[in-house]
Every structure is written in C-alpha cells, then in structure tokens.
C-alpha cells in the first residue's frame, strides 16, 4: 500500500472513531492502534489473572462459609474476566500462547496494585472496596471505547463486578461493627491500601504521554487525574459512613471546586513497583509460572484425549 493510500485510510479511520462508530476485528486499523490495544487489553487481562493471587491466598481462611462462597465466586469471576480480555486481545492477531509468554517472562505489565501483600482478613475488605472500586471506575469509562470486542468485554465485566465492591465494603462494615481489634484491623487495611489504590489510575496527566492519543482513539474516555478525583470523591463519604479515617492529612472538601483536595502521591514508590521492585512482584510471577508449568501435563493430556476422540461425531446443533 502506498503512503498516500495509508494516509487516506487513516483519515477515514479517525473519522469513524470521531463519529462514535465501533471498530471491529477485521476492519482496517493503523498499526499503532492495533499495538496499543494489544498492549492495553493484555495488561488488563494479566491484571485480572494476577489479581486472583492475593485473594486466592485467603479462600481457605475466610471467617465464615458466607464469606468463603463470596470470595470464591469473586476470584472465579476474575479468572473469567481474564479470559474475556485475552479473547478480545486475540482478535487483534496475537495468540494466547504469546500473551501468556509475555506475562510469564516479565515483559508484559499488569496492575501494580497486585504487587502489594494481603496481610490480614481486612485486606479482603479493602481490596474489594477500594481496588475493585477503582477498577470499576476505570472500566465503566471504557464501556464506550472504540474497539468493539474490548467494549463488549467491559460491559460484561462491569455487570459482574459490582458485587465485588459491595462484598468488600460489607466486610469492612462488619469489622467496623465489631471489637476494637477488628476496627483497628479494618483501619490498618485502609491505611495500607489507600495510596496504592490512588496510584491505580496511573501517572498524573502531565506525565502520561499516551493519554492524548488514547483519548483520541477513545481507548481512554477520561484522563487519569479525572478518574482519580472521581474515585476520591466517591470513596471518602463511604469511609466516613462506617467510621474509617482516610490516611491523608491534606484531605479536605473544596467548596469552590466541589471536589476533595487530597495529598501528594508518592510517585517514587509508584515507579519502583511498576519497575518490578514492589513487595510481591517476584512472588506473583513465580506463582503464575509455577501454575503454568505444573498445569502443562493437563493441557497436553486434554489435547491427546481430544485427538483420540476426534473421529467421534459432534452433537448436532438444534
């Protein structure tokens, strides 16, 4: 294709996005659009899969059966969400095998929040309430993203995820209605998860070089800072309602802005964790590698079985 042809295709493509048309898998798209989407959708998928680890760690230690079925269902949802997203990424021409390889080799990123440890039962509350709360905020904005398969995955995920946040908040609420030790445990969990949750929205707009292009492609519908502010505004009253204190001395309602002002995020910590030096980066990847390696014989056996059965007729659709 000549440069002229590509330019005119690109103009038409940009116009379609400006008109709020969806782009589907087989449509022509600029190479950069494809690559950026593969990167973002696969990071999102990896986050769901790695995100199963901190909570999976607590399934055997839930305080009641009710909490246990809820946590199991939540972790199972996350596995499902990872699959929807991997499938969406695969429509752009990358294989599942390559995606998994990028995660296991450490080449691909996933949300840094999962590199923090879940130390107490209250962390299950804080993760559901804050981490899922922040994720939902991001994901609701992405429902209108321009790439059809990603947008459809987001719709499904958002529908399923609202219980995740509610069960987390309910855990915090139960603890806050409990003994002093339980209240302290809840407060401690909030203290540890608050700032990493704010970091989930990514660098400040001024330091986020991809934001402009992503907004144009509607791969992002709101900027990092806008989403972060919306999250703070939404979460502060929820904390107050159950008697939790947000660990930020500079947090204050600003009547002029009609938003909360809040303190400075430790960006050095953010970059440390992004670049692999968080408390659990190594442990998380090792857990994924171990699961993948130890599951290899199951994948091989299933394939061998399928080949053996392949002469049997499939059930006919009706």
């Amino acid at each position, binding site marked *: 294709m000549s440069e002229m042809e590509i330019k005119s295709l690109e103009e038409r493509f940009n116009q379609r996005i400006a008109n709020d048309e969806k782009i589907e898998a087989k449509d*022509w798209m600029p190479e950069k659009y494809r690559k950026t989407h593969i990167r973002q959708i696969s990071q999102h998928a990896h986050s769901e899969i790695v995100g199963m680890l901190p909570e999976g760690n607590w399934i055997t230690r839930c305080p009641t059966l009710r909490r246990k079925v809820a946590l199991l269902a939540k972790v199972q949802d996350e596995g499902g969400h990872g699959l929807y997203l991997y499938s969406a990424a695969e429509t752009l021409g990358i*294989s*599942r*095998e390559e995606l998994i390889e990028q995660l296991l080799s450490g080449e691909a990123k996933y949300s840094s929040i999962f590199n923090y440890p879940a130390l107490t039962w209250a962390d299950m509350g804080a993760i559901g309430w804050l981490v899922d709360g922040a994720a939902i905020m991001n994901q609701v904005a992405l429902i209108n993203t321009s790439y059809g398969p990603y947008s459809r995955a987001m719709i499904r995920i958002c529908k*399923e995820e609202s219980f995740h946040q509610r069960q987390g908040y309910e855990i915090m609420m139960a603890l806050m209605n409990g003994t002093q030790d339980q209240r302290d445990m809840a407060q401690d969990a909030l203290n540890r998860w608050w700032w990493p949750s704010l970091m989930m929205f990514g660098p400040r707009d001024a330091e986020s070089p991809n934001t402009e292009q992503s907004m144009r492609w509607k791969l992002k519908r709101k900027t990092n800072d806008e989403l972060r502010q919306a999250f703070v505004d939404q979460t502060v009253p929820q904390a107050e309602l159950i008697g939790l204190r947000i660990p930020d001395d500079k947090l204050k309602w600003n009547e002029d802005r009609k938003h909360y002002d809040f303190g400075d995020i430790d960006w050095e910590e953010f970059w440390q964790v992004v670049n692999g030096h968080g408390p659990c980066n190594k442990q998380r990847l090792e857990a994924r590698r171990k699961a993948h390696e130890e599951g290899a014989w199951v994948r091989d056996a*299933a394939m061998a079985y399928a080949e053996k*059965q392949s002469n049997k007729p*499939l059930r006919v659709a009706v």
Partner: protein
Amino acid sequence: MKDWPLWEVFIRSKNGLEHRHCGSLHAADAQMALENARDVYTRRSEGVSIWVVPSAMITASQPEESAELFDPAADKAYRHPTFYVLPDELKHM
C-alpha cells in the same frame, strides 16, 4: 506447546430467543468447550442453551468488500413499507 483450538460461543438466554454470539474460548474438544462456556459465560444463569463452534469453521465476509457485497440492497427502497404512498385516512396498514 500450542494453544488449544479456539471456539466461538453462542448462548440462548431463554427459550423463544435466538442463540447470540457472546465470545470465544480455547478448549481441546467440543465437550470441554461446552463446559468451559458454561463456566465462563453462564455463571449467573445467563443461558438455557449453548452452541460452541470451532472458530476455524466460520467463513466471514471481508469489511473491505462490504460496499460491493451489500450494494444490491442499497437502491431497493421498494422493499420497505414506507416506499408506498397511501392516504392518511387509511390508519393501520
């Protein structure tokens, strides 16, 4: 090792409605594809029936040929009820 084959999943949400495409998944065989589809796409009673189809078996039209492919329908307004001008007094028709 190579990926398991890809399958497209279609779910009938209730009797009386059509099966609708809802996504895809990898599975070694049809039975596993059905079971995975149940686990991945119907965890909240979203379906009463599932079809799984090997993705490789689907033949799709090409977006770049859409103009020619769908062109025959473009100039046939007479296939729509509003093409026929009838008096206003004639209510339901």
